[in-house]
């Protein structure tokens, strides 16, 4: 199990980890002696933190620069402890460390109380999706193990965490330097009857099982080696949520193409006919379709959304601020797509939650609520529905410069890209969707008549097959076409001007009898389309 230790600089994270190692007998023989000898040679007083801050630069400055990984075990299980730096300069390293963790211990210095990074780290833990948090009020020796001092910090910090929806498992008074309440109880803290750090950590659970959720299998790559007699075509990736079995019908998003699982492939392992999260695997299909990296495989009943507009909460770590209009690379699961900010709703400083809504750019260490426009639609979920397909990183130049979680999504055909505007100029009309519902055979006939009429008037119109996927329709709309879709178009949120035609009654923009003539239907629909001013009229 991975646990991260976070908190403000100098609140004693490395000392606590060093103490945990020493008190549980996890250190290799000679490690303490080696570090003590180095200290003697350099004329320094030994500290438990030196066990971790093994890097030269850190011992010189006495602060942790990067997240070190330490292996440690209790009677219950093995742990990797990630010691994250508390200095704000190294926030990206704290994020790196914390993102690998399933639980966190957040330290607050009893003498200094809640500081800027106590809050910032708390906020980032929530965004990173870490729900198991223990707060340790450290250096209790500096306040004479006073319960009043402890209670005051607990009250203040609990209030802050409540605002961002985090409910810690425990608040624990400790003194790392002397080992109080780390691995053993303390006779100086008799007023405290909760668990020690070690007990609290052993009481946490592994990440909740992802296996019972709807299937999300992002395609990482497709292999066909074709040598050494191997002709398999293997769709490879990691099952991020749910499970799949040989024989399952699966759908590839955003294309909506379907196929069936023929086999689950593995090298030098017993063959299986079902595999679930979080396994890396590969499958072959009964029917070959064009699948590629970035696709997400689901079952038909539980699809992800297909969207090109995302409302997100993100944190920024880049040196250069994130600005509106600039193109960034967004990486979500295995998909990579160009993204631009189209609206900044709120920018806030995570260290005090004070927001400044008029800020036009997102600076280093800011947290923001923004809307992103993607260059093309991708398969996506809200983070609360599916973690792996609901969170992303932003690449600026060559580096990951930020990360975020998706809170809402939409499919919007009128993209910000200038290409759409230019196509509109070229065609002389904008995109529109005509959805003809009800009376299938009649609907098809009307659709074809309408297509003929529209083309005759100089419009680029196209009838899609019944049951065409939302992604296909969105692409055609993005290309600027007037798309005529007989049957249910299944667009949750129609991305372009839409004329809803109901045959045989019901609700719609145009309501027609089921036996209406094609000519009369065309007239009525053209009239409605013209009112949208999205039409060439000859």
């Amino acid at each position, binding site marked *: 199990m991975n646990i991260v230790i976070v908190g403000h600089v100098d609140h004693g994270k490395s000392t606590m980890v060093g103490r945990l190692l020493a008190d549980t007998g996890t250190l*290799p023989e000679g490690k303490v002696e080696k570090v003590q000898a180095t200290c003697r040679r350099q004329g320094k007083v030994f500290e438990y933190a030196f066990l971790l801050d093994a890097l030269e630069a850190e011992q010189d400055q006495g602060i942790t620069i990067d997240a070190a990984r330490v292996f440690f075990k209790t009677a219950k299980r093995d742990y990797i402890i990630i010691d994250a730096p508390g200095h704000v300069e190294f926030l990206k390293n704290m994020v790196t460390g914390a993102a690998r963790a399933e639980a966190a211990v957040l330290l607050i210095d009893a003498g200094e109380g809640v500081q800027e990074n106590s809050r910032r780290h708390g906020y980032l833990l929530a965004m990173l999706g870490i729900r198991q948090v223990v707060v340790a009020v450290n250096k209790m020796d500096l306040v004479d193990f006073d319960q009043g001092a402890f209670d005051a910090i607990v009250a203040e910090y609990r209030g802050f965490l409540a605002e961002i929806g985090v409910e810690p498992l425990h608040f624990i008074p400790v003194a790392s330097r002397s080992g109080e309440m780390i691995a053993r109880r303390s006779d100086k803290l008799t007023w405290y009857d909760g668990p020690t750090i070690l007990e609290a950590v052993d009481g946490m659970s592994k990440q909740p099982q992802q296996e019972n959720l709807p299937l999300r299998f992002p395609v990482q790559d497709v292999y066909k080696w074709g040598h050494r007699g191997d002709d398999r075509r293997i769709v490879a990736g990691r099952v991020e949520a749910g499970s799949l079995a040989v024989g399952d019908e699966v759908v590839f998003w955003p294309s909506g193409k379907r196929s069936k699982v023929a086999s689950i492939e593995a090298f030098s392992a017993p063959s299986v006919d079902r595999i679930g999260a979080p396994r890396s695997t590969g499958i072959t299909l009964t029917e070959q379709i064009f699948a590629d990296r970035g696709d997400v495989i689901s079952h038909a009943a539980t699809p992800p959304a297909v969207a090109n507009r995302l409302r997100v909460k993100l944190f920024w770590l880049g040196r250069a601020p994130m600005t509106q209009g600039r193109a960034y690379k967004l990486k979500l699961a295995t998909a990579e797509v160009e993204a631009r900010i189209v609206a900044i709703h709120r920018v806030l400083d995570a260290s005090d939650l004070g927001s400044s809504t008029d800020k036009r750019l997102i600076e280093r260490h800011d947290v923001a609520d923004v809307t992103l426009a993607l260059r093309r639609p991708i398969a996506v979920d809200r983070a609360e529905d599916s973690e792996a397909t609901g969170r992303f990183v932003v690449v600026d130049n060559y580096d990951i410069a930020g990360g975020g979680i998706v809170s809402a999504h939409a499919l919007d055909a009128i993209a910000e890209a200038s290409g759409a505007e230019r196509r509109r100029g070229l065609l002389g009309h904008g995109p529109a969707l005509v959805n003809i519902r009800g009376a299938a055979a009649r609907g098809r006939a009307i659709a074809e008549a309408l297509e003929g009429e529209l083309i005759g008037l100089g419009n680029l119109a196209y009838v899609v097959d019944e049951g065409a996927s939302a992604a296909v329709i969105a692409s055609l709309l993005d290309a600027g076409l007037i798309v005529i879709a007989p049957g249910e178009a299944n667009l949750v949120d129609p991305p372009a001007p839409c004329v809803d035609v109901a045959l045989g009654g019901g609700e719609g923009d145009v309501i027609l009898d089921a036996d209406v003539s094609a000519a009369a239907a065309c007239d009525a629909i053209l009239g409605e389309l013209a009112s949208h001013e999205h039409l060439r009229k000859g």
Partner: protein
Amino acid sequence: MSQLQDLEDQGVYIFREAYKHFKELCMLWSIGKDSTVLLWLARKAFFGHVPFPLVHIDTSYKIPEMIAYRDQLAREWGLTMIVGQNRKALADGMGPERGRLTCCSALKTDALRETLNGTGPRMRMQHPSGEYVEDTVREPFTGVIVGARADEEGSRSKERYFSPREHSGDWDIADQPPELWNQFKTDFAPGTHVRIHPLLDWTEVNIWEYIEREKIPIIDLYFDRGEGRRYRSLGCAPCTGSIESCATNPAEIIVELRHTKVAERAGRAQDKADAYAMEKLRRDGYM
């Protein structure tokens, strides 16, 4: 053993990311247990294939069995094998008697850098003859997969899975890119390269548990062959000491490791030269 399975799945995921993003990709194979586990993971990731070359730096001081074992596996598994060497330093008589760090620096660090960036010679194994012929391809490798583990010593515990290196091979420890949610640094400026570490979260015990579970054919220098001694870590013959042990198979090694408190690299002389020796070597591009 869900922990081992988790480690395998993460390693496989990293391999596939590396293969997808780096056109000039290679893997360093030291013939030791870690990089042999790495090689096995590659075959897991690519369903029995290893779709990139393996690079071995031959200091000429390696234990002879290591070279024989390397060539045997390379032939059996159909591996693309590339061997690099600092011929100039060897011709000038470089060896451990000139100072261990000096020797490591010339025969490992410099040889590795020059093999990777294509300025040094690359010998490529021919199949099926097994002969080595000088390679005409000298494209610099932009992605280099390495078997480093975080628990080996302090500086390695701070590595990323995807860790950028400057043109000189330098590692800027204080300014590493963030890495989260299995999104890695796969974009890089021309002239730089990225080290990729699929085994970062593995411990020495995990390595042996996996060797046992998968029945990976590991070089037998790690086992007691009747003298009551075995190697715990492999390197150059003059600088690698064996340890007292009667372990003859992975299961016995696991039992032994669970009861020892001696550091793994205790037998490696170069680590002892200076408190920060490994960090210095790594900053300069040592694997």
